[in-house]
């Protein structure tokens, strides 16, 4: 098999320049950083890729990501096909004959006892009488055949030198305005996390819990900014976000934030009022401001900011401008934050806009 590996390496070397050219053209890899590329010209003045990415960095990133995964899957498919063709040729067979011999011919016939054993392990698959058993037999037979083929191709791959050379696109740093938004943590923290979330979702509540844990683990290193993002047809979420905005105006946003999220994302109207009282809000003032509709306008503005930044569904965090869904495990988020703390200590740039002068410096945010 050494010969095969050598051939693979040589092929890989030859492929590298061509792949680099393709990836450069696709905007994947190092050439993507060449932001001064002129994309258009207006009356003789250039419009560069960097300017476009100011507004559409995340959308471009997603497209590049799609292209990268498409290349990866297609390359793997071609490689697998070639491996089968090569092996078939080596043995003087057609690919069909090879698969018949190596896959169909090596799958052990299914016995009734195999079905019984499967049912003992998966009792939820029982039922539907004789027809159900026939379907199960068909499933188990076909699954064995598929598994054998997967294993066989994997073994061929194992003996070869297959490498996918395209690097995934780098996550862009998105400009996310933080002025006029509630924040907590250290005003001079090297890491700013903008959390697009709402109070009526268990996933958002869990996401907030992860940020709280980060603040505890890295004291002085993180500034947490809250932005509302929700479906405006979700009455509970809208009412809770509106109350949050009212709490912000009364300088008690984080008290309300923590009280409402303590409900785990379940926020019927009564729970919102109760959380507002617990946070010490002036309920009359809140009602007056709700009546004017200005609080809701601020919520809508936040949603607009989220949409422009590429948010489609809450919760989303921007860690120094780097997008990350709040659905990811704490460890993933922690790793990103650690990288940013390290990066900032070595002078890396953050593109998140500056701290709001309207926030108080008490580490708990304040009035806009």
């Amino acid at each position: 098999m050494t010969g095969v590996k050598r051939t693979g390496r040589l092929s890989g070397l030859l492929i590298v320049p061509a792949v680099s050219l393709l990836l450069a053209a696709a905007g994947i890899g190092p050439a993507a950083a060449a932001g001064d590329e002129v994309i258009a010209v207006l009356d003789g003045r250039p419009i560069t890729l960097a300017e476009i990415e100011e507004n559409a960095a995340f959308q471009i990133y997603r497209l590049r990501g799609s292209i990268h995964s498409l290349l990866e899957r297609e390359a793997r498919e071609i490689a697998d096909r070639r491996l089968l063709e090569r092996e078939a040729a080596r043995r003087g067979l057609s690919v069909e004959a090879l698969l018949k011999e190596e896959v169909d011919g090596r799958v052990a016939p299914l016995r009734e006892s195999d079905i019984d054993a499967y049912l003992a392990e998966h009792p939820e698959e029982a039922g539907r009488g004789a027809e159900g058993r026939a379907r199960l037999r068909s499933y188990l037979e076909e699954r064995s055949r598929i598994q054998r083929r997967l294993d066989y191709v994997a073994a061929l791959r194992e003996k070869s030198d297959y490498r996918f050379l395209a690097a995934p696109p780098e996550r862009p740093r998105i400009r996310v305005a933080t002025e006029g938004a509630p924040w907590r943590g250290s005003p001079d923290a090297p890491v700013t996390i903008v959390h697009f979330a709402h109070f009526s979702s268990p996933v958002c509540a869990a996401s907030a819990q992860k940020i709280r844990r980060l603040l505890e683990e890295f004291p002085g290193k993180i500034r947490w900014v809250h932005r509302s993002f929700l479906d405006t047809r979700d009455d509970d979420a809208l009412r809770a976000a509106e109350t949050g905005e009212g709490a912000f105006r009364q300088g008690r946003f984080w008290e309300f934030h923590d009280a409402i999220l303590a409900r785990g994302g379940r926020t019927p109207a009564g729970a919102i009022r109760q959380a507002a009282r617990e946070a010490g809000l002036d309920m009359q003032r809140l009602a007056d401001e709700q009546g004017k509709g200005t609080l809701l306008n601020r919520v809508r503005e936040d949603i607009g900011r989220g949409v422009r930044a590429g948010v489609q569904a809450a919760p989303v965090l921007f860690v120094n401008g780097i997008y990350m869904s709040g659905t990811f495990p704490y460890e993933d988020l922690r790793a990103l934050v650690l990288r940013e703390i390290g990066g900032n200590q070595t002078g890396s740039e953050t593109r998140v806009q500056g701290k709001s002068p309207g926030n108080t410096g008490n580490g708990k945010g304040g009035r806009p």
Partner: protein
Amino acid sequence: MKRPIRFIIPVLVVVLLAPGVPQAAADTAAPLCPKRLSSTGDSMTEAIDAELPAANHWASWVNGYHGFWEWLLGLTNVYSHNQRITKIYGSSGRANYMEAKSGADMFDFAAQAAQAVSRQAHYVTVLMGHNDACQDRFIDIPSNAVFEDKFREGMDILKAGLPKGATVYVVGIVDIYRLWEVAQDKKALGIVDCEVLWATTLLKWYPCSTMLNPLIGEAGRQYTKARIQGFNAILKAVTEGYNAADPNHRYVYTPAAFEYKFGERHVSDIDCFHPSAYGQKTLSEMTWNPALFTGCTK
């Protein structure tokens, strides 16, 4: 420097849009212009979670619309079949019916077909079968024979009741395996951890255990994909059979939705399963076939 990749997506769309000529018998009645549209199907057609949680009918690949409120709210214009029909044939006499229901499977096709007949539709779309393949358990996936019987039941109703010259357009089931792959892409890109989302928010109605349950493994997923391919082969063969045997109507099958390599942006960030508004828009582009109505009568 030119960036050829920018041209890949348009080229794909052009290739997919290459007009397929309906294989109708020579003596088939001239097609009716598709002014009365009726869609049969499931959550894919209802555009569940495409842009906002729950049904997003404005974003349906077939029935979607984009009026003042959709424009004002900044919702996606998917340029659906409905919109294309109005653009080409005008708004006079237009009707746009959605019989599709979230959760429907081929057992529901007959009832939806009867609804389409009651509308006297000129153009009936069928995009169904996802819920036949997507089940809680593998043994719940119907056999090919049962699937075919149920499909024929609905087709018989359409054949017997649609006006002469109506077109039945059967779209092959979307490659659900591809949607699973796309969910992995979303995770790799840091956009959303779909498995966490499925486990935390969709637990009560796990959308497609026979494909998305992490415990079934690669062989389980490929089994379900193979069943979808089997169902699509049935949809194709049966549709072509009706087209050959019924001179009063046109029946056309397209594999475009199955064959298209959906990317990460085509799948909803809300549930990591249904097409996003962008996915619905692409679905509309891929499946719209103006050649179906060449020489149509009003």
